[in-house]
């Protein structure tokens, strides 16, 4: 006997021959295979399963499905597999399951937080908004951590998630959501036409061997569907998101119901299903009644009690009082009595009750108290009595209260169609005045609703009640809960209306009704009815709040899927990556690339390595992997015209074999990208871009070419990954490469600075650029990427005699900053013009048009007080300013102070023996020699404004 509260027989889902042991809050219990955690706890007489969110009131199991607002538990397998906020009615029992209650301290039965309940008149709606406004600073440091600690929805696991998660795209003609009778009927009809059908249901599949009960014929349909090759049946699979164009997201739970995870099976699988037609057969959810003390453990939905009895053979109690406004509850009365439960009261809010089901109850000898309401419940941690009272002919409640001793209260206010997914699909909901619920109206997608979710409730399901129950005049004797999970009462909704809220959207946010993880599955309609009544408006006039994804909480693991760890983002590596890694390079990510940042020798830190690399380049030479630079081939009869329109420069005057520093603006006049552009043929440009900017520059070029200037005959091709680029920089650069280079005359006259030649390097076809991003004599050897590693090694070997070093991006940054060369995205930020950056010399001012030209005439863009790029020298040469620091004109101010600029680049220059910095400063070029101030964490630094070029200002070293 697994639990004292089992019926003598029955229970279509459980296997009484297979007992299962489990723990709840450390205590051992036993259930049966096929139980849920909720049914197994109830079978053991455990009703108190959690404490409520705000008041820490004891809470029991109210429902038997995903709509249950109370029984949130944590299920723990090990330190890493620790899942909070699972719904006990959805947790399938397995051998050794360990579950814990949440939101209680120190224990579930004695919880200090319950004091909130007794102080509740000081905790009305909007309490947090009203109380914790002042002082503002205290919010982060004091109030919020304490509120969060007190308001518990479990703890997150402390270890990385060890499980794997799958993802799958699927296509079908018909997707049926919900495998109840309506869904199965639709699925079979569609499947018989031969089209692809997917059927999903959030529950476990019912056991094949279970005794044929009323669901017998549905077992037949399941068996038929299971063998049809065009049908996929997904159990334990929740449809949680309905996206445009009939894309539905499903989450399939594959191992959570097993006693141990499976090694080669993902824990969950996210399905993205594109369906020609979606059939929603999502059923309806029974509504609780709103009366004082309706949240005591032992108070349950009538339909839930039927489910626990029918599927799991569980008795909710021994003495049951039933209060209903709906005929379905009479099934519970009859079935429970047949199972040996005493029905101590059977009350109905309606004045007359005549349906087939109430008649059956009467014929079974039960008395129905019609026209009856309740004044509330009694009990501390479990219900002990229900106070019934007659409703007068005029609707008032004034008679004597009949306290009925009981251990269970079953309630039913009728059924609310589960229109969540239909509403997510932007289908319109319409108010059904006879059913008193919202039902699906005009669909926005190719989607149909069938069964109870469409309002087809069946002939025996008449009757409903919305909003608070009638009760005697005077103050209420207890809290009447509307939203169990967020602890919202009828009085909270009254208060919101009294305080002036009119829109249901505002009332929802102010009271937080319907905003918990259950999204108000049991509460929305009651809350709406109460608000409408207080506003003296009809329910459809007040309107329903929007349902949003997800229908049920979805774990992050399932959404992340494969995109974790190494697969989180693609990693791009240059052909020289392995060489650098073997040499102990430290890498840094630059967009998706892994770039060598510096090459430390034994015992060196970054500072020392960078200093050595910089000095080595300026004294002898260094080599640098520049392969990540973006490269775009611009080819065609109109290539020159296209480049003239895109870039600020004048390309008509660029001879074949020469290079020019190109600047690309957006049409708003601000710098977008830069790079060296080589004219490799009359109709061909080799355009380089910043490492991170390559995709967006190509996209922008395509945009203008395709949509603004489709008449231009130009073709654009990304060649970034076709070329490996080896920069050799320093006074010895020519000496290093000259023995490797064929067919190119490297002499200054033949290949001057800013020129390019085709030839061979180590026998490999190559483009040899004479360019410099260091201010030294420099070459950039471009060879096909497959030869990159070999040519790099050959250059390295040849360079040994000349004292070559490999240098990384950090030294590259210092060397270019010494020369005042900007880095787009570091020294510019999307609000910097070419002139601001000191680059107006590059602008082809006589050109009729180029991107940004029109904007450059705007008054704001020629304002002399704009921030301009300058150099800064700290008065203490050892102080390296922090990049991003603000700059002021006056010393020793306290905030707020007038900021006139900021530091964009800052390094220690070993070559110069002092710190250097670049900055954008208002009217900076007119401030040469001025002293400015940079507030720092430890005081402030005084700085002198200088030319951005701090090394070799005449540029003589470019010629070696």
């Amino acid at each position, binding site marked *: 006997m697994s639990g004292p509260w089992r019926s003598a027989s029955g229970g279509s889902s459980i296997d009484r021959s297979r007992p299962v042991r489990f723990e709840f809050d450390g205590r051992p219990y036993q259930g049966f295979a096929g139980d849920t955690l909720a049914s197994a706890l109830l079978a053991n007489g455990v009703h108190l399963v959690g404490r409520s969110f705000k008041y820490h009131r004891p809470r029991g199991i109210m429902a038997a499905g995903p709509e249950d607002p109370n029984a949130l538990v944590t299920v723990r397998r090990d330190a890493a597999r620790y899942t909070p906020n699972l719904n006990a009615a959805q947790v399938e029992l397995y051998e050794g399951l360990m579950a814990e209650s949440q939101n209680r301290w120190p224990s579930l039965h004695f919880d200090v937080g319950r004091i909130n309940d007794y102080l509740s008149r000081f905790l009305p709606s909007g309490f947090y908004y009203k109380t914790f406004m002042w002082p503002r600073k205290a919010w982060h440091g004091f109030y919020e951590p304490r509120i969060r600690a007190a308001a518990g929805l479990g703890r997150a696991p402390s270890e990385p998630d060890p499980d794997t998660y799958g993802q799958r795209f699927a296509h079908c003609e018909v997707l049926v959501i919900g495998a109840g009778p309506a869904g199965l009927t639709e699925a079979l009809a569609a499947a018989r036409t031969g089209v692809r059908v997917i059927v999903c249901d959030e529950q476990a599949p019912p056991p094949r061997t279970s005794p044929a009960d009323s669901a017998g014929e549905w077992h037949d349909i399941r068996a038929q569907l299971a063998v049809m090759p065009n049908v996929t049946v997904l159990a334990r699979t929740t449809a949680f998101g309905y996206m*445009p*164009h009939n894309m539905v997201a499903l989450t399939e739970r594959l191992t959570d119901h097993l006693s141990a995870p499976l090694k080669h099976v993902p824990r969950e699988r996210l399905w993205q299903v594109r369906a020609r037609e979606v059939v929603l057969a999502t059923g309806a959810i029974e509504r609780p009644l709103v009366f004082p003390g309706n949240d005591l453990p032992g108070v349950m939905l009538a339909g839930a009690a039927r489910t626990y009895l029918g599927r799991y053979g569980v008795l909710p109690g021994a003495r049951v009082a039933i209060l209903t406004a709906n005929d379905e509850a009479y099934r519970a009365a009859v079935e429970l009595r047949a199972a040996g439960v005493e029905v101590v009261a059977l009350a109905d809010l309606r004045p007359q009750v005549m349906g087939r089901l109430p008649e059956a109850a009467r014929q079974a000898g039960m008395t129905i108290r019609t026209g009856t309401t309740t004044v509330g419940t009694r009990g501390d941690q479990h219900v002990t009595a229900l106070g019934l009272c007659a409703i007068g002919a005029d609707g008032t409640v004034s008679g004597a209260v009949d306290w009925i001793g009981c251990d269970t209260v079953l309630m039913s206010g009728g059924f609310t169609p589960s229109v969540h997914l239909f509403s997510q699909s932007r289908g319109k909901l319409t108010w059904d005045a006879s059913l008193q619920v919202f039902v699906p109206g005009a669909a926005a997608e190719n989607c149909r609703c069938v069964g109870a979710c469409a309002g087809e409730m069946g002939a025996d399901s008449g009757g409903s009640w919305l909003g608070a129950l009638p009760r005697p005049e005077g103050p209420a004797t207890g809290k009447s809960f509307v939203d169990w999970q967020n602890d919202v009462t009828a009085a909270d909704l009254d208060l919101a209306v009294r305080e002036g809220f009119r829109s249901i959207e505002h009332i929802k946010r102010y009271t937080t009704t319907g905003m918990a993880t259950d999204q108000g599955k049991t509460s929305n309609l009651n809350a709406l009815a109460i608000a409408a009544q207080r506003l003296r408006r009809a329910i459809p006039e007040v309107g329903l709040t929007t349902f949003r994804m997800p229908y049920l909480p979805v774990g992050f693991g399932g959404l992340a899927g494969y995109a974790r760890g190494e697969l989180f983002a693609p990693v791009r590596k240059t052909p020289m990556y392995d060489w650098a890694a073997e040499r102990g390079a430290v890498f840094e990510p630059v967009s998706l690339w892994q770039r060598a940042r510096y090459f430390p020798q034994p015992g060196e830190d970054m500072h020392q390595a960078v200093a050595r690399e910089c000095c080595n380049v300026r004294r002898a030479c260094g080599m640098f992997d520049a392969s990540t630079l973006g490269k775009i081939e611009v080819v065609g009869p109109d290539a020159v015209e296209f480049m003239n329109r895109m870039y600020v420069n004048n390309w008509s005057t660029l001879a074949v074999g020469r290079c020019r520093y190109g600047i690309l603006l957006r049409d708003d006049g601000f710098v977008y990208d830069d790079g060296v552009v080589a004219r490799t043929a009359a109709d061909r440009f080799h355009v380089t871009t910043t490492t991170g900017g390559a995709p967006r520059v190509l996209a922008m070029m395509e*945009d203008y070419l*395709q*949509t*603004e200037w*489709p008449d231009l005959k130009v073709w654009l091709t990304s060649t970034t990954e076709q070329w490996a680029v080896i920069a050799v920089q320093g006074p010895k650069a020519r000496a290093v490469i000259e023995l490797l280079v064929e067919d190119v005359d490297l002499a200054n006259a033949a290949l001057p600075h800013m020129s390019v030649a085709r030839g061979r390097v180590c026998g490999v076809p190559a483009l040899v650029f004479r360019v410099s991003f260091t201010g030294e004599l420099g070459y950039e050897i471009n060879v096909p990427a497959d030869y990159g590693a070999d040519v790099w090694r050959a250059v390295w070997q040849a360079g040994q005699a000349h004292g070559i070093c490999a240098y990384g991006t950090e030294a590259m940054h210092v060397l270019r900053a010494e020369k005042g060369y900007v880095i787009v995205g570091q020294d510019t930020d999307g609000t910097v013009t070419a002139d601001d950056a000191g680059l107006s010399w590059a602008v082809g001012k006589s050109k*009729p048009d180029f991107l940004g030209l*029109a904007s450059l005439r*705007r008054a704001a863009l020629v304002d002399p007080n704009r921030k301009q790029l300058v150099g800064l020298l700290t008065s203490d040469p050892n102080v390296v300013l922090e990049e991003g620091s603000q700059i002021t004109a006056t010393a020793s101010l306290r905030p707020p102070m007038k900021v006139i600029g900021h530091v964009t680049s800052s390094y220690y220059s070993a070559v110069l023996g002092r710190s250097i910095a670049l900055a954008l400063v208002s009217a900076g070029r007119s401030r040469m020699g001025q002293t400015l101030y940079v507030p720092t964490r430890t005081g402030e630094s005084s700085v002198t404004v200088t030319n951005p070029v701090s090394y070799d200002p005449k540029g003589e070293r470019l010629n070696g």
Partner: protein
Amino acid sequence: MLLIPCPYCGVRPELEFSYGGQAHIARPQTSASAEEWAAFQYERVNTRGPHAERWRHTHGCGRFFNVVRDTTTDQILRSYRSGER
């Protein structure tokens, strides 16, 4: 996730495309007024209903084209090539 009809390739999932903003905003002549340039750069409608917008089949044919999408339902009413109306 939308299903987008590329006029060159046919219907493909949104994953293959990138959004290009409102369609039919012609770039003014250089000589145009500051107001015209400001409108070109900064003024966009916020339509409730059918909205002509640009998409690029980035991970497909690479072409820019136009789509009329109802912003209240996300249903795509038609798609057509750049330069067409």
